[in-house]
C-alpha cells in the first residue's frame, strides 16, 4: 500500500501564498551596542552575522496609476551568493488587533544578470541604497538591524553616505497566509526589546 501524500492540501497549482509579517523601529547609533547585546542574548545562538547589501528598486509603469515594484538585492560582501528578487504587495488592511504589518511576499533567488533582465522587460530603476548591518534569528523570526546609506553617484556603491544617525530595526516573519498567531509571537518578542527600541507596525502610506 502506498503511503498517503505528505501534504493534504489540494494541489491545484500555484505557489503557497506567503505573507510577510513586519514590525519596524529604529535605534540611535550610540545605543546600538546595547541593542546588539540584548539581541544576542534573546536570539538563537550563532555567530554575529553582518551583511552588506545593495538593493535596487525597479518600477514598471503600466497604464494603471500605481507602478509595479520589484526589489533586487545583491550581497556585496558574500561572493557567489545569488541575487534576491522580491515582490511585496500592499499591506493587508486586516483588523486593527493584528499587531504586525502583513503583506503578500514572493521571494526568488536569481542569477547575476537580473538587472539586465529587468531592464529588458521594461522596468526602470527608481532608487537604490546600501544596507549594512547585523542579522539575528529566533525560530522563524528574523531580526535585522541595519543602516541605510544613500548612494551619491548612481551605480557606484563606494560613494555612500548614511541617511540618518539611526539604525533601522526590522522584525519579520515569512509565513503562509492565515497564521495570525505569528503576530502575537512577534509582539511578545518586541516587548522584550523595549525600552531600547519600539517596534511597531508603521504604515508606509502614512509617511508618503
Amino acid at each position, binding site marked *: 500500500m502506498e503511503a498517503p501524500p505528505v501534504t493534504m492540501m489540494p494541489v491545484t*497549482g*500555484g*505557489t503557497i501564498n506567503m505573507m510577510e509579517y513586519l514590525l*519596524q*523601529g*529604529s*535605534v*540611535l547609533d550610540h*545605543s546600538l551596542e*546595547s*541593542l546588539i547585546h540584548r539581541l544576542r542574548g534573546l536570539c538563537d545562538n550563532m555567530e554575529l552575522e553582518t551583511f552588506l547589501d545593495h538593493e535596487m*528598486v525597479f*518600477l*514598471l*509603469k*503600466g497604464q494603471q*496609476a500605481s507602478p*509595479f515594484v520589484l526589489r533586487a538585492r545583491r550581497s556585496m560582501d558574500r561572493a557567489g551568493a545569488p541575487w534576491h528578487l522580491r515582490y511585496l504587495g500592499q499591506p493587508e488592511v486586516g483588523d486593527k488587533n493584528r499587531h504586525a504589518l502583513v503583506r503578500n511576499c*514572493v521571494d*526568488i533567488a536569481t542569477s547575476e544578470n537580473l538587472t539586465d533582465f529587468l531592464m529588458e*522587460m*521594461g522596468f*526602470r*530603476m*527608481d*532608487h*537604490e*541604497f546600501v544596507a549594512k548591518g547585523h542579522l539575528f534569528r529566533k525560530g522563524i523570526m528574523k531580526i535585522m538591524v541595519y543602516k*541605510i546609506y*544613500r*548612494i551619491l553617484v*548612481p551605480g557606484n556603491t563606494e560613494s555612500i553616505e548614511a*541617511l*540618518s*544617525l*539611526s539604525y*533601522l530595526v526590522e522584525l519579520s516573519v515569512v509565513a503562509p497566509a492565515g497564521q495570525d498567531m505569528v503576530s502575537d509571537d512577534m509582539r511578545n518578542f518586541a516587548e522584550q526589546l523595549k*525600552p*531600547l*527600541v*519600539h517596534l511597531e507596525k*508603521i504604515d*508606509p502610506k502614512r*509617511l*508618503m
Partner: protein
Amino acid sequence: MQREEKQLEASLDALLSQVADLKNSLGSFIYKLENEYDRLTWPSVLDSFALLSGQLNTLNKVLKHEKTPLFRNQVIIPLVLSPDRDEDLMRQTEGRVPVFSHEVVPDHLRTKPDPEVEEQEKQLTTDAARIGADAAQKQIQSLNKMCSNLLEKISKEERESESGGLRPNKQTFNPADTNALVAAVAFGKGLSNWRPSGSSGPGQPGQPGTGTILAGTSGLQQVQITGAPSQQQSMLSGVQMAQAGQPGKMPGGIKTNIKSASMHPYQR
C-alpha cells in the same frame, strides 16, 4: 515568681544574641579598617557605621521591651572567686575569660562608669541644668530645624542629579528617524536617484522637506506633473519626463508580454 524568672531568662537570651551580633559587626569593622584601609571607601565605612547603629537600636528596643524585667533591680554577686582556670567559663566566654579571679571581677561586674567619665557626665548635667528649661528648648528646636534644612538640601540635590542623569539615557531611539528610515525603505524617500544639476544638488538631499516633494514627483511621474508646486520643480520634472518619455515608448510595444509577467509567470 516563675513567670518572672522565665521572663528574665528569655530577655537575657535575647540580649545575649543582640550583643553577640554587635560584637561580630564590630569585629568585622575593625578587621576591615586594619586590613583593607587602602581600598576602603567612605560609603563602605558608612555602611559599617549604619550596621552598628542599627544593632544598637535593636539592643535598645530589646531593653525597653515591656516583657523585659528591670535589670536594674537585679544584682550580680560573685559567690566564688578562685585563681584556677575554669573550663566552663572559658567555653562560655569564647576563651576570653579563663579565670574568675579578683582581677577579672571588678572589671566585668562593675556598674559605675570610670571616674573620668563620671566627672564629665556630672559636668554636663550641671551645664544643662544651668541653662534653664526655656533656653534648652530653644536650642533643641534650632538644632532640629538646621538638621531638617540640611536633609532637605541633600535630598533635593540627589533628586536633581538623578533626574539629570536619567534623561539623556532615555533617548535610545528617535521616532522621526524611524519614520524617515521606514519611508526610505518602503518607497525611497530621501534616496531619489534623480540628480538635479549643479547648485541645487548638494543642498537638496540634505533637506528632507524638499527631498520628499522631489521624490514624490519622480515617483508619480506622468500622472502628477501638473501637481508640482514651484516653477523650478515643474521645470526639472519636465526634464525628467522628457527623459522618461523615450523609455516609456518601449513598454508600449511589448505591452502584452509585460502584462503576463506581472500576473505571476511562476504561477504554474
